[in-house]
């Protein structure tokens, strides 16, 4: 039987993993749902965030929190020309074109990362104030993961508030719901695409940096983790903002659980469960028909 | 009393609060020239979707030649002779005109899934397709990819494909939609020359076309049948004018 302590561990680590997965994948969900563009290179943005964070901290000794911000901003900036010059011609177009284009970018990113940083994993050295454990009396929790959960929760709340309460959020929701209607109402969808893309990429960069010790930063990052990001989006539902959160939670906790209880099977059951969910709800849990 | 070619009884379909078909009773006689009109959003295209099987009704019955087809999948209805065209041309874009029609003929003949013989072996199907194109004046463009044709000619190919299925009932969804004025007479003449044994249901907005082609008109408003009758009666009906022209009292 599983002990309560083990359950708490699984829940805790699953939650931390879920936060990272969500931060990275929410941008992808919106890109696929809003722009009709399958961006297989989305993981590259998370990777860029991770490299920026680890490089700035280890080579230049910059403090943790400012570096996180820089990582997010840098990623968002890098994503802008890619969207403007390349992606935008293929919105709503043929999947094959999008798959090949973004796969090509992934390959280039693998080469680029290997050239710049070498083939080995970049370890994350959390700052001193986040190392070690937090003792809550009945048990202690790793400090960094706790920070991850809290930080993630804060970001998710801020994101949801922004979507629900701001004019920008209203425009995004309108455009996801019915693009033509949104255009006829006067929403500048071209600029909206650009802004949401940058926002989603920035969040991915942030998630990649924050989660550097959960998803190892190495040149093949985008390829290795592609399946998980796509699962979060597919199970959550394209274009949904909340759906991927539920999916990330399910995936994070299932991943932790299976790794703890049935390590010989690895992620096999996760994929099988994903197929089962998609069989039941082909458009995802919160997807539109 | 011969059963009508197509009939619906109490056909009902809703999407949540939106009711697109509100207990529609409808009868299409054999060989009819029947038009279905109504303002935008009245549910005309939904009606076609329900009748052809692209949409499942919540309640009601659909009968084809007296037999119930309410639960039948779309392909089975096509095999029985219930055929439709699309409001926005839906053809096999990069394939030739001849190929478009031949695919339909092969499906009708049940050889569409054949794996043993090359498709060229079925010369009868190809000849039949070509003859059909010839009859409709499309023979000259038989080998051109269909997306290279003028839009009006594409609408003709759309009708050709539907004729290739030997329809008993043909639902034409806005056949003249999007056709430049210079080419619309082609389409209208084609419809006029369709064989009299096919029952036609035409959805249209173009009143001239309707009054030229239809012997009977059904007016659909918000999923309900408002009124049905011969063209002169419909034209004179004050309710119809109110629905189309607003609350203004007609002069």
């Amino acid at each position: 039987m599983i002990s309560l302590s083990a359950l708490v561990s699984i829940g805790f680590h699953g939650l931390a993993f879920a936060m990272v997965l969500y931060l990275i994948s929410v941008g992808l969900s919106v890109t696929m749902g809003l722009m009709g563009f399958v961006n297989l290179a989305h993981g590259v943005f998370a990777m860029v965030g991770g490299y920026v964070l680890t490089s700035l901290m280890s080579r230049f000794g910059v403090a943790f929190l400012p570096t996180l911000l820089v990582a997010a901003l840098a990623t968002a900036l890098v994503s802008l020309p890619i969207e403007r010059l390349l992606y935008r011609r293929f919105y709503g177009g043929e999947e094959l074109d999008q798959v090949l284009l973004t796969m090509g970018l992934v390959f280039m990113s693998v080469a680029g990362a290997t050239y710049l940083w070498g083939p080995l994993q970049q370890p994350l050295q959390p700052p001193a104030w986040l190392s070690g454990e937090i003792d809550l009396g009945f048990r202690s929790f790793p400090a960094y993961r706790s920070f991850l959960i809290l930080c993630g929760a804060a970001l998710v709340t801020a994101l949801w508030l922004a979507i629900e309460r701001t004019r920008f959020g209203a425009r995004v929701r309108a455009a996801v719901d019915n693009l033509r209607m949104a255009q006829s109402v006067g929403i500048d969808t071209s600029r909206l695409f650009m802004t949401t893309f940058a926002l989603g990429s920035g969040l991915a960069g942030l998630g990649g940096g924050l989660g550097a010790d959960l998803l190892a930063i190495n040149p093949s990052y985008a390829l290795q983790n592609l399946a998980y990001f796509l699962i979060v989006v597919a199970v959550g539902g394209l274009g949904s903002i909340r759906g991927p959160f539920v999916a990330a939670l399910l995936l994070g906790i299932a991943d932790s659980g299976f790794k703890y209880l049935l390590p010989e099977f690895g992620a096999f059951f996760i994929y099988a469960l994903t197929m089962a969910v998609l069989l039941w709800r082909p458009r995802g849990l919160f997807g539109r028909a | 009393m011969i059963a009508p070619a197509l009939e619906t009884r109490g056909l009902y379909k809703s999407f949540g609060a939106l009711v697109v078909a509100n207990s529609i009773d409808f009868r299409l006689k054999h060989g009819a020239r029947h038009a279905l009109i109504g303002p935008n959003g009245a549910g005309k295209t939904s009606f076609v979707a329900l009748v052809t099987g692209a949409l499942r009704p919540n309640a009601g019955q659909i009968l084809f030649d007296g037999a119930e087809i309410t639960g039948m999948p779309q392909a089975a209805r096509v095999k029985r002779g219930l055929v439709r065209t699309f409001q926005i041309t839906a053809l096999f874009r990069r394939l030739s005109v001849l190929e478009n029609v031949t695919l339909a003929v092969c499906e009708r003949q049940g050889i569409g899934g054949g794996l043993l013989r090359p498709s060229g072996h079925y010369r009868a199907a190809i000849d039949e397709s070509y003859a059909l194109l010839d009859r409709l004046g499309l023979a000259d463009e038989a080998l051109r990819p269909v997306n290279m044709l003028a839009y009006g000619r594409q609408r003709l190919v759309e009708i050709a494909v539907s004729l290739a299925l030997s329809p008993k009932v043909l639902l034409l969804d806005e056949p003249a939609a999007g056709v430049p004025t210079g080419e619309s007479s082609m389409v209208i003449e084609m419809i006029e020359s369709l064989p009299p044994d096919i029952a036609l249901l035409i959805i249209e907005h173009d009143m001239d076309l309707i009054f030229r082609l239809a012997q009977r008109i059904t007016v659909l408003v918000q999923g309900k049948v408002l009124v049905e009758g011969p063209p002169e009666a419909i034209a004179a009906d004050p309710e119809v004018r109110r629905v189309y022209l607003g609350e203004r009292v007609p002069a």
Partner: protein
Amino acid sequence: MTTIRAVDAFARRHRYKPLEALPWVAAIAAYFAFPSYLALGAQILATILFALSADLLLGYAGIVTLGHAAFFGAGAYIAGILAAHGWGEPITGLLAGAGAAGLLGLLSGLIVLRTTGLPLLMQTLVVATMVAEAANKASFITGGDDGLQGMEVWPIFGELRFDMFGNTGYFYCLIVLFLCWLAARHIVHSPFGRSLTGIRENVRRMHAIGAPVGRRRLVIYTISAALAGISGALIAQTTQFVSLSFPSLERSGTVLIMLIIGGVGRLYGAFIGVPLYMIAQDRFATAEPVYWYFWIGLMMVLVVVFARGGVLGLADRFRR
């Protein structure tokens, strides 16, 4: 101007043309011209079959998949495991690989083909990742990270040994490719194959002419999977090794690249794209793998932006 003669030509599209002998003549000529490259040659031939199977899905049925390597890997592992556990007969190994891959195609197709577009794409990726993970974790039988060791492939018909110069391997792959190509060509020109192009061009219209679309897609998916399985088994048997790179996402991606280079949906794109890619890879990738990745990635981007039709598409433009 269309005359009855043009319609005759339409009805005779499936007849063999002299130019179609070219790939086979070239393959036999290559045997004599490049005797020290037969091992690479055999790999090229087997990969052409893999790309051909992917073209049936991609170019003809219009099904974009990111998981075709799953079938390649399944065929390879089955043939490999048989040979490593005492049954090294190559032809039955080939058939077993085809059967396993075909079965996987049928079962996954039942799930995956229920949608189209982006959801379908993602589901194919999940299936492929699942197969790769299974191969990874079942390392007691697949060899896991180290790869499948100890394969012993028997001589074909008891007579033709697989020697280290690759003679037998080359002709083994050539003949299997030829037979499978005959089958693929036959499928493409049959009414079934023509209906696939209809499904690709306009699914709605296909339903509206009464075609059983779901069934047709499932059939071609299964056939394509079986052919991919054969190609995987060929590589396993001629190199006597199977690794986790066989069912990888990378391999699914590179087969798409090879097809795009040659031209999708024309049956011969594979014959052009695969040799071009693999010869280039053989020359450049071993020297500087990092640069190879970069240039291939860049090329993919450029091809998509500028030259979507591939080599055959450019040839078309010149002919006009």
